């Protein structure tokens, strides 16, 4: 196995800012408090009409006021996902401590993952079609409903000009894909700063689909539990402010964690079912890219959706890739499945775990499924010295993405 091109002289990449919009808290401080205390975002869904469903619980965000967070954006011109994106981008920049003026002088990548883009608006347009006919759609919705707006709305909010703005709709692994893009861009010297992560808003379409598949839990999401009943759909945004280590040191920035590397692959097998061996291979690719061994990993933040198939297959893959698996948790018990935002929010959680010295809990846990059988840090966060964390994500279509973070060390 030869070293990849540019491997030897690549720049190190660090996370120096976090912007998070979640059902357990908006902003880093609230999100961190939620992770530490095992807060649940589950509640009855109000985003769309739920008559006709036997149950409709989701991890909805009910206390998000976009006007409180954005400065240059008229929220009415954006779909809900783009509002999340613009707000999270602003938060991440504020949290990084870099002035917006300085940021505008630098070359930047904005890379935003998503499952559904602005499908919330496409839902609304479908309602308008049914009620009024296709000749009578709202122009504002038709214009703002495209997926690229998730990235360009962050660009507009920050008034960036020297910027590459891309949306990466690689479904439920999209956040990690978008993070990887930023990592490579900084490593290669393509950009100075990358705002990367994932965004999604609750939508009727996705709720109906998962419900019909029998993958939707009635009330709670219980990853790795013997009695787990499926996912809860969630929403939110997680954007990370990435820069080179040299840049962070030069400006004396607070570093949450270093992104050690990542791996991607595709099962090329089933449109919906995960593939254990392929996922294990993706973890190995990530380890190699990060220059670590399985034993180095202090805990795994699993995709851990709480469906029978995902959790069993994912744990099987972990056992393939790890002679002795470390504690393996899922924050989806707290946040639900935030789709394209999920792996980005989990990466943000992993960065906080390193900085703050704890492992977030897997909540709603009663009895561990023997088919899973790992230490999932049930219900209560655990104080721990965390040096290296692995964050898994997998998606429909067999799209796997695994990111590895580490405590910043070996700084000259």
């Amino acid at each position: 196995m030869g070293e990849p091109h540019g491997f030897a002289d690549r720049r190190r990449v660090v996370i120096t800012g976090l912007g998070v919009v979640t059902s357990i808290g908006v902003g880093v401080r609230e999100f961190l408090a939620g992770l530490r205390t095992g807060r649940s975002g589950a509640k009855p869904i109000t985003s769309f009409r739920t008559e006709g469903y036997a149950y409709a619980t989701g991890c909805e965000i009910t206390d998000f006021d976009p006007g409180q967070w954005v400065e240059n954006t008229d929220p009415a011109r954006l779909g809900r996902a783009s509002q999340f994106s613009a707000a999270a981008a602003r938060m991440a920049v504020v949290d990084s401590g870099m002035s917006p003026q300085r940021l505008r002088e630098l070359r930047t990548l904005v890379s935003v993952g998503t499952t559904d883009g602005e499908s919330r608006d496409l839902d609304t347009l479908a309602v308008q079609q049914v009620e009024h006919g296709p000749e009578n759609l709202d122009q504002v919705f038709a214009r703002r409903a495209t997926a690229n707006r998730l990235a360009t709305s962050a660009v507009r909010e920050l008034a960036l000009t020297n910027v590459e703005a891309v949306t990466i709709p690689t479904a439920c692994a999209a956040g990690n894909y978008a993070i990887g893009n930023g990592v490579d861009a900084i490593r290669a010297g393509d950009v100075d700063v990358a705002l990367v992560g994932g965004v999604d808003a609750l939508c009727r379409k996705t709720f109906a689909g998962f419900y019909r598949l029998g993958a939707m839990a009635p009330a709670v999401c219980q990853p790795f539990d013997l009695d787990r009943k499926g996912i809860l759909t969630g929403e939110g945004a997680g954007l990370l402010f990435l820069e080179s280590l040299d840049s962070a040191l030069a400006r004396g920035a607070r570093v949450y964690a270093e992104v050690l590397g990542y791996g991607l692959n595709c099962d090329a097998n089933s449109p919906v079912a995960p593939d254990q061996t392929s996922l294990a291979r993706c973890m190995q690719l990530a380890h190699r890219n990060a220059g670590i061994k399985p034993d180095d990993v202090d805990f795994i933040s699993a995709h851990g959706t709480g469906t029978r198939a995902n959790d069993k297959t994912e744990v099987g893959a972990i056992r393939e890739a790890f002679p002795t698996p470390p504690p393996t948790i899922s924050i989806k018990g707290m946040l639900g499945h935030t789709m394209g935002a999920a792996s980005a929010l989990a990466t943000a959680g992993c960065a906080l775990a390193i900085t703050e010295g704890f492992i977030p809990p897997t909540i709603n846990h009663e009895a561990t499924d023997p088919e899973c059988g790992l230490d999932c840090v049930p219900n209560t966060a655990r104080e721990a010295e965390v040096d290296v964390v692995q964050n898994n994500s997998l998606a429909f279509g067999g799209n796997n993405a695994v990111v590895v973070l580490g405590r910043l060390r070996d700084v000259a």
Partner: protein
Amino acid sequence: MTAATAPDAGALVVTAWSAVSAFGMGSAAFRDGVSRQRDAVTAVDLDEFPGPFERAGLIPGFSPTGHLGAKGTRNMDRLTAIAVSTVGQLVREYGGEVTEDPERVGLVLGTGSGSVQSIMDFTRDSLVGEKPYHVDPAKFPNTVMNKATAQSAIWHGIKGPNTTIAGDWLTGLLALSYAVRLCRAGHCDRVLVGAVEEYSTQRAWLEWHAGAAGDRAPALGEGGAIFLVEPVDVAARAGRTPLASVLATRFMAAATTAQAGETLADCVRAALRQAGVAPARVRVVAPAAADGGLGSLESAAITEVLGETDARWVRCRPLLGDASAVSTAFQLAAALGEPLGRDEVALVTGIDRDGAVGCAVLGGGTTS
């Protein structure tokens, strides 16, 4: 490769491409259509595609089962079928070795918002059915925006990184930029990169309303374009001859669409500087050539940077319609269809509807 851009072993080159468009299936049909400037926008069968447009640049006679057979296409939407066919066209034209060692082959495809037809039909079923969950579970994956890319990997057995990219009219250029980065970073040995777009009733209505142009709305197009990109040393070992080198991609964003022209000029200057290429070496220009104001801003910006030039301008949009997500990928294909000597470069540009701009600089000639 050009002498002035003496390639290191890791320089990335395009060694194969194909396209599926209103010109027909494959690179030969595409090259022929562009070179003869054939107008491929034709009457829409309004029984198949009811909607506001009477004319469009449709792939002639295309249907999922017609092009891919009955097996595995029962629930396949048009977008995914175009993607699978586009990748298949490249494999057919250049041979199966393109996808050999499948874990080391990446697949990167651009899309608008996936298939808005599949997405909105699914929501509609939920709205009008007796119960809101009376939707077809087999069609749920079609409503997820990575479906076309993922299904292409499943169909053709491509197991490396599999990424879907969205960026409105810049999608093809953004996909190329992403793919180059992916390959340079060693996540794959070579990468199939392109973009796809479908014509559908839902897309037509959304474009119609978003454009607010009513009868003046330009005809829409559809199709796919795909490129094999790899380091020059990998290509050499496989015996594939470089068609062009990817010298630079660059993107910027204008504060308002009115400023998109001057921002594009800045972007092109930066890309040429990054590529180490003087403006006089640009011999082929493939602009987005949008109707109306954006198209005028674009050509003025390019002319401003290149100065007095007798470069060949290749415009495929007037021939194929507004192909949205596949627009800039069609332009890349059009540029590759032009003869380009040593020391000559091609410039491909785009402006999207939100004020973002981008370009790619391709180096011509091949290594001897």
